[in-house]
């Protein structure tokens, strides 16, 4: 990657390294704070400012959302945050889990009231068009839409959808040394040009909230949750319940 080719990312990395250096502190006790983990800068997370559209597009023919590709098929090249930024993202994820406030936080999130299959007469103000392999989807605030028989239908986040900025209230999810952003069932990877692309749920990811259309399934005596072909296993991490993306369990 040529650094000067991506001024937005370059500026982000510069700001991260220069100004967002902060200490992590355990919460709820002096002992926890005195026993805190290593400092690191915070990765970029921008507030959403969707572009305005004067009116909704005309509904066209019905097309079902395409199947998600296999998790191994990650699109494009992700922006590569440095090891310090990855460590900060990991710390942020752990802090959020320890506070156990995911359910309350989600109450205020725009995307919390939507689930795939919901039908809408019109798109929300501020929608933007997302083209994926010749088909137009629509997007606003972390929610993706397709055209339906009479209006629009909320769909599971389509892999390869490219949005300029993260939706509100994402959580950072670190898998290995890769930083993902997660909201409303969508995993996003930042691209070298600064945009964010929906990717398949990465194995080993741990999220605080299930996708909105997740349903429980019992396999081999264990309860999993299934959403859009992805299995989530409840675990306890950092003292709170979270959901681990796992391969399809044996029934």
């Amino acid at each position, binding site marked *: 990657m040529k650094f000067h080719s991506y001024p937005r990312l370059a500026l982000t990395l510069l700001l991260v390294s220069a100004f967002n250096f902060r200490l992590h502190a355990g919460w*709820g*006790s002096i002992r926890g704070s005195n026993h805190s983990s290593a400092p690191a800068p915070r990765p970029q997370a921008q507030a959403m400012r969707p572009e305005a559209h004067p009116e909704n597009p005309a509904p066209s023919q019905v097309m079902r959302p395409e199947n998600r590709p296999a998790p191994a098929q990650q699109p494009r090249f992700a922006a590569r945050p440095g090891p310090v930024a990855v460590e900060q993202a990991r710390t942020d994820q752990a802090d959020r889990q320890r506070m*156990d406030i995911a359910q309350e936080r989600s109450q205020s999130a725009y995307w919390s009231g939507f689930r795939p299959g919901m039908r809408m007469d019109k798109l929300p103000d501020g929608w933007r068009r997302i083209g994926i392999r010749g088909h137009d989807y629509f997007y606003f605030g972390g929610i993706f839409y397709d055209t339906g028989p009479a209006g629009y239908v909320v769909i599971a986040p389509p892999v390869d959808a490219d949005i300029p900025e993260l939706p509100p209230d994402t959580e950072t999810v670190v898998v290995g040394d890769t930083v993902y952003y997660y909201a409303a069932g969508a995993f996003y990877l930042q691209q070298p040009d600064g945009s964010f692309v929906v990717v398949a749920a990465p194995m080993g990811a741990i999220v605080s909230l299930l996708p909105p259309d997740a349903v429980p399934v019992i396999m081999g005596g264990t309860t999993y949750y299934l959403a859009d072909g992805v299995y989530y296993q409840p*675990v*306890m991490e950092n*003292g709170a319940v979270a959901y681990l993306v796992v391969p399809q369990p044996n029934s």
Partner: protein
Amino acid sequence: MKLLFFIGGGLLLMCAGCATAQEPASSPPQGAPPASSANEVISPQAEDLLRSACDFLAERPAFSFKGEIWREHVNDAGQRIQFSRSVQMDVKRPNGLRLELASPFAARAFWYDGKTLTILDRKHNWYGAASMPPTLDAAVDAARDEYGVDLPLIDLVVSNPYENATAKIETARYYGISPVLDVPCHHLAFTQDNVDWQIWIEDGPQPLIRKFVITYKNEPGQPEFTAFLTHWDITGPIADSDFIFLPPAGASKIEMRQVEPNRNQAK
């Protein structure tokens, strides 16, 4: 970090030196702040009051209290949002702890019996368990280091609360008497490198902690943790069985994941 501090301090001193050089030697600036050493105070009164409250707790073989804790979260807009939990804690020295944290959206219960830490998510009826060292002091650290669990208010639980609380303080101040839910209390304030904290101690023969605030001054937005402690019981015995976890009907055990090596270690 200290290196940055010294570099920053050096730059400040250089700038201060430049400013001073431009001032007439005989005219000290109006309203000049006091010498830095005057700000770095350790109030003996604050220390004595804190020690009395901590020793009072340390001498109790068992105690319990209820209360409410607030933890602020800074949202995308930079606004500090308070999330609250009702709290109930039972402690039996040296190796018994039971803690309930509850709200309509999240409810967790913790048991430690000298051998095992169990965390029950009451909303889902799922629990995880992990082996722990045989004392409270070691267990709260192991819970943090090995499983990433932050137990709120464990400063009251450890065997030497005074040593624990003052391990890293830089200043200690006394702000007199103020009420906490109608109970007259001594108001103390302490600063550390990474947090500031305040404590309100009941004025009377039983120096009970009634309020506790931690300010995370190095985090964006400087969020705070606040605890109001009520319904203290320092006399009633607590049965050992109260600290042993018995799974509720229908509860499922889930994996309690360990943190990766070298994460959450003390620095």
